[in-house]
């Protein structure tokens, strides 16, 4: 299956890109895919990360489905 990984703000700078298509194993958990992303971009491991699946905050245990949109970002700072 394929999932789309999105980066914003600092994570986009650290990854040097805003988007990445990954093909994790079927029924991969969110946390496994995050670990895979950090392997590719080790700089990301230095920051406290938050993630969302299909625009809803995720905790890591969620199982990803084909076509899911996984976003990885630092603690928000709007306002």
């Amino acid at each position, binding site marked *: 299956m394929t999932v789309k990984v999105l980066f*914003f*703000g600092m994570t986009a700078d650290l990854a040097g890109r805003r988007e990445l298509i990954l093909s994790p194993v079927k029924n991969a958990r969110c946390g496994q895919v995050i670990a895979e992303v950090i392997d590719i971009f080790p700089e990301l491991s230095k920051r406290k990360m938050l993630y969302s699946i299909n*625009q809803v905050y995720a905790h890591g245990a969620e199982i990803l489905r084909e076509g899911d949109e996984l976003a990885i*970002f*630092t603690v*928000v700072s*709007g*306002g």
Partner: protein
Amino acid sequence: MDFFELTTGPLDIGAIARRVIPPECGATVTLDGYVRQFTKGRETEFLVYEAYEPMALKEMEKLIRSAHQQFEISNVGIVHRLGKLEIGETSIIISVAAPHRKAAFAACEWLICELKRTVPIWKKEVYVDDEVWVEGENA
């Protein structure tokens, strides 16, 4: 009517406060956040706000729904500006109308606090010789 928007244009606090007023209400409380010239003694040149737009809008909608459950309020308007902002420009306006001002104050304060904690928007402070993506304090 409630509303929540992201925009790259300048924000007009008067226009936004006016949009939340229903005929039966008596007070509107508006929070107006803007670009500081100095942060921890360091002079900011300008700011850039970036959002995960579809998720930010969903989170703003959730906040407004939750505010209606907790407080006796009539209408809420939230507009966050994105892109480059000069010093002194307004980055966010939250306007709450309520029959009693106590609820309007409480809801407006709760909304800005929660927005800063949950809505996926990031601020980059640009200095003369450096730039920093600000990381929020709450997780």
